[in-house]
């Protein structure tokens, strides 16, 4: 039984570490976008390298958590949902890394008049994912608090949609100096940033149902 307790303790530490990795990854993503929009290439590349490491670490942690849960039959009734939740959280950092990579490879032209909108879009989209982490942590200790913590996730997701909509409208309706290719490219990039908050929303839906089942 002592071996079992140790496994549980180690697993809870690893789950916390996984959440930390995702949370830091989101912060790095926001800083990375800021650096790119402000033209600080060195800082951007540093952030890209960091998020790459963090994404690899999150993958490893996710696999080891899943493995331990199956091998030691931990949380047998919630296991499939837990695995899905971990996968969806990992999806957030994956999307963040992919977004920064898109910037690195495609080097989209961000007009200075759009700098503020771009930064605030990445902020709200990142905030949506960031707010998911306290809710996920609460699921393990205070499942009754999960729903109220998730309200912010849904709020920021809606804000992201609004911000992206406004920006696309501005690009296509007001910025006639941009070519259609540039406009399409910006639209494509905003879509990538939006994906982060969409992934956060999917994870939030799952987390909410898991919390309800815990409370019943």
């Amino acid at each position, binding site marked *: 039984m002592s071996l079992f307790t140790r496994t*549980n303790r180690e697993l809870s530490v690893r*789950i916390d570490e996984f959440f930390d990795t995702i949370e830091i990854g989101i912060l790095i993503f926001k800083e990375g976008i800021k650096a790119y929009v402000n033209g600080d290439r060195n800082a951007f590349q540093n952030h890209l390298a960091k998020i790459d490491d963090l994404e690899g670490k999150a993958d490893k942690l996710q696999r080891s958590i899943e493995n331990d849960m199956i091998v030691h039959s931990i949380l047998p009734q919630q296991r499939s949902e837990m695995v899905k939740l971990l996968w969806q959280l990992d999806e957030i950092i994956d999307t963040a890394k992919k977004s920064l990579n898109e910037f690195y490879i495609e080097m989209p032209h961000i007009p200075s008049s759009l700098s503020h909108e771009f930064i605030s879009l990445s902020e709200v989209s990142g905030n949506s994912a960031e707010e998911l982490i306290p809710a996920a942590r609460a699921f393990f*200790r205070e499942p009754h608090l999960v729903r109220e913590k998730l309200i912010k996730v849904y709020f920021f997701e809606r804000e992201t949609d609004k911000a992206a909509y406004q920006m696309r409208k501005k690009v296509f309706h007001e910025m006639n100096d941009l070519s259609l290719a540039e406009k399409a490219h910006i639209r494509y990039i905003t879509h990538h940033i939006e994906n982060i908050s969409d992934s956060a929303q999917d994870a939030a839906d799952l987390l909410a149902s898991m919390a309800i089942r815990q409370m019943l």
Partner: protein
Amino acid sequence: MIFLFLTSGLFLGWTLGANDASNVFGSAVGSRMVSFTRAAVTASVFVIIGAVVQGGGAADTLGRLGSVNAMGGAFTVALAAGLTVYFMTRAGLPVSTTQAIVGAIIGWNFFTDNAVDTRALTQIVTTWITGPVLGAVFAYLLYHLVKITRRRIKMHLLKYENWLRIGLMTVGAFGAYSLGANNIANVMGVFVPSIPLENADFGIFVLSGAQQLFFLGGIAIAAGILTYSKKVMQTVGTNLMELSSEAAFVVVLSQAVVLFIFSSASLSGFMVRIGLPPIPLVPVSSTQVVVGSILGIGLYKGVSNINLKVLGSIASGWITTPVAAGVLAFLMLFIVKNLFSIDVGHPVNPPVSAGEGVSMATIIRYSIPVLLVITAVYLVYLVLSEKKKTERLNKKYYE
């Protein structure tokens, strides 16, 4: 020869182990919180301990109902109960070993012209009703307590699951002990008056004749658990309502407490000492107590989670099982006595006094409250099912 006659009791014990161990560890094994091997070994050990240490009380009550005073009679009574359980299970009808053995003993009483002790019968029938009700009440309160505690202590889910696992093993052991203590009377109770064994002195402890029989019965139950309960354990718990590990813990605990209450002579003595009426020591159906406990949790969560048909089937089982077992026992006793010329029992001497004997008036007097209770249960069932139907329709409408 004794062992030949005991085979029917051992068969009954084996079926009890195969089916009823799932009430103790089924939810834990079904949810993969506890491995089958660990559950089966724990249940087997504690069933035997419970049967030997605390099996006497419930067996005495069954003995009062009908003291089967010939080995042939005991064999036939146990076989009739076993066959009733077997055939009713195969036919998909609700059945309980406890109710089958009581019906078979009454069948023996009628066949051998022995009076039925109406006091013992009333005690037994009352506990059939109070058992599941108490199970529901305990489960409701315990589940509420578990939920409040969980909220207060803010323990990490993994640590909490770990404690639940330990809790499931502990209450499972307690449940197996209570099952052995309470239900051994069904298996070996009828043999106690007809097989008087001498005390066995093992130096540090002495086993009475009845305890030796209970030990054998306990081994039969353990054999049933180890050889045939795996499938039942892995499928139990989802028939009535899907159980979480927390709910499984509460169900097993409340069932163990109810079975313990109805088999503990010390607890009954304590009640008398503090001026309260004694608790009747009666074998109760563990399955029905489990159903009552699950119902208690269902009531806590809201009625719509429960399969209400099960309620009706329990109430119908209170009548159909003893009647079927009684009729079968009567017929089998007739065959065994007249075809094989085996002594199946004789009227008990000294003759039973008029007050204790069963007459038509007594039967009617006790049937009326029983029928009233069954009608009340049926009405509750109707009201709840109607409510559930309305909820379902409303849900469909709003969707």
